[in-house]
């Protein structure tokens, strides 16, 4: 009953918040029904991946349009509240291991072994170390990340937050929520944060 109410109010919110016409809602409902019928479990990728959490649903509803500022603000606040910090209070791990994680695209696909640790494929979307010329451009260049912004605790924390839950600072970002969704372990996040923040990391050379 409680979940029903939440689902209802989410629909109401959608309808009010982004001028969804009734037929748009119908297309959405139909699309979900057809996906549930057409997709089949394969490896670790089960059909329940079609089910959206509230963020996925809200972000999808805007299509190519920008998220309205008030919605973005609320969403970012919610996502910021999901972030968990390292138990020992240290943000930085080993940048060398971070570089390996940033290179690896494995994890989450139906042909990946779920028992193996996941990578994060940061290079798919970002420039990082200068030596790696095979990088994508969906996200901004992170070359000289700490060299430009500083090596201090505030920036360390920002880097942690960003990797943990990208939507805390950019509602409906294209970047996965590596910590929140459990893609990376705490130690792995420390390692990629070190890749961004360690003065000896090739990112800051």
């Amino acid at each position, binding site marked *: 009953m409680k979940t029903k109410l939440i689902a209802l109010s989410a629909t109401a919110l959608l309808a009010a918040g982004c001028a969804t016409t009734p037929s748009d809602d119908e297309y959405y409902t139909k699309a979900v029904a057809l996906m549930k019928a057409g997709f089949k479990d394969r490896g670790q990728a089960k059909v329940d991946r079609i089910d959206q959490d509230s963020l996925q649903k809200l972000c999808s509803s805007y299509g190519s349009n920008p998220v309205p500022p008030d919605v973005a603000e609320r969403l970012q606040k919610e996502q910021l509240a999901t972030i968990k910090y390292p138990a020992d209070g240290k943000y930085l791990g080993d940048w060398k291991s971070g570089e390996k994680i940033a290179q690896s695209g494995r994890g989450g696909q139906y042909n990946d072994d779920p028992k193996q640790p996941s990578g994060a494929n940061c290079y*798919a979307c970002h420039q990082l170390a200068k030596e790696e010329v095979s990088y994508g451009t969906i996200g901004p260049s992170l070359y000289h990340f700490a060299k430009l912004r500083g090596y201090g605790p505030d920036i360390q924390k920002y880097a942690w937050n960003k990797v943990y839950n990208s939507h805390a600072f950019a509602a409906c970002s294209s970047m996965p929520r590596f910590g929140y969704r459990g893609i990376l372990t705490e130690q792995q996040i420390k390692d990629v944060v070190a890749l961004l923040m360690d003065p000896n990391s090739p990112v800051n050379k």
Partner: protein
Amino acid sequence: MNRTLGGAARAACAVMALSAAGAFAQQRSAVEEIERYRQALGDGNPAELWEARGEGIWKKAAGPKNASLEKCDLGLGPGVVKGAYAQLPRYFADVDKVMDLETRLVHCRVTLQGISPEEAKKSPFGGPGRKTDNDALVAFITAESRGIAMAVPMSHPKEVEAFEVGKKIFFHRGGPYDFACSTCHAVDNVRIRLQDLPNLTKQADAQKAYTAWPAYRVSQGEVRTFQWRLEDCFRQQRFPHLDFTSDASIALTMFLARNANGAPFNAPSIKR
């Protein structure tokens, strides 16, 4: 015809040799690479081998009813192959639903040849040492639309519905990475690693992308269909497996094909 085929076979060998030798060339722009392959090939595309095989399958009597597919109606009337693919997916009154090419082919194999739906749908995509009828038929039929402008109809309400539902699927974020097609294909001029990503919501990019499939993939030595491309993108999206011929697959294809309207169809092509 024979001459062309010989050329294509020779070209296939040239391509294999090149791709083996060219492993280091990863970092060169993909476009430049393909230009080199094209030059090595002359006018031939190994996909011609698939096209010829597909034509043979189309004309050959098969199944419990011992019939060929030559009476199959791909939308322009029974047996009309020329230009049919440029107007697919579309609404078919005989089944009262929208179908894409693969779904229609399954329908024809079932109704004309008496093959069971399970058999007709089974393993559509080829792999090493395994050639499929579906790959060959799709290569043959799509080639018959080469040079013809894409004109996917949207006059029937079910066509409109398929398009709108397809759009929803395109933007549907889900799974552990929060990905949708739109994560990688709704922004201009971006790439993943070194691979350029078309913005499939913009006409020019959508036209270029859609009209270039199926393609002979040099790196795989196979003709890959558009449905295969979708399957591989769903994998990267961390989604499960989408059954080809499912209504969700047809709707998504409708959205992508319709966005390509106006451009001359130009496949089977050749890709890295």
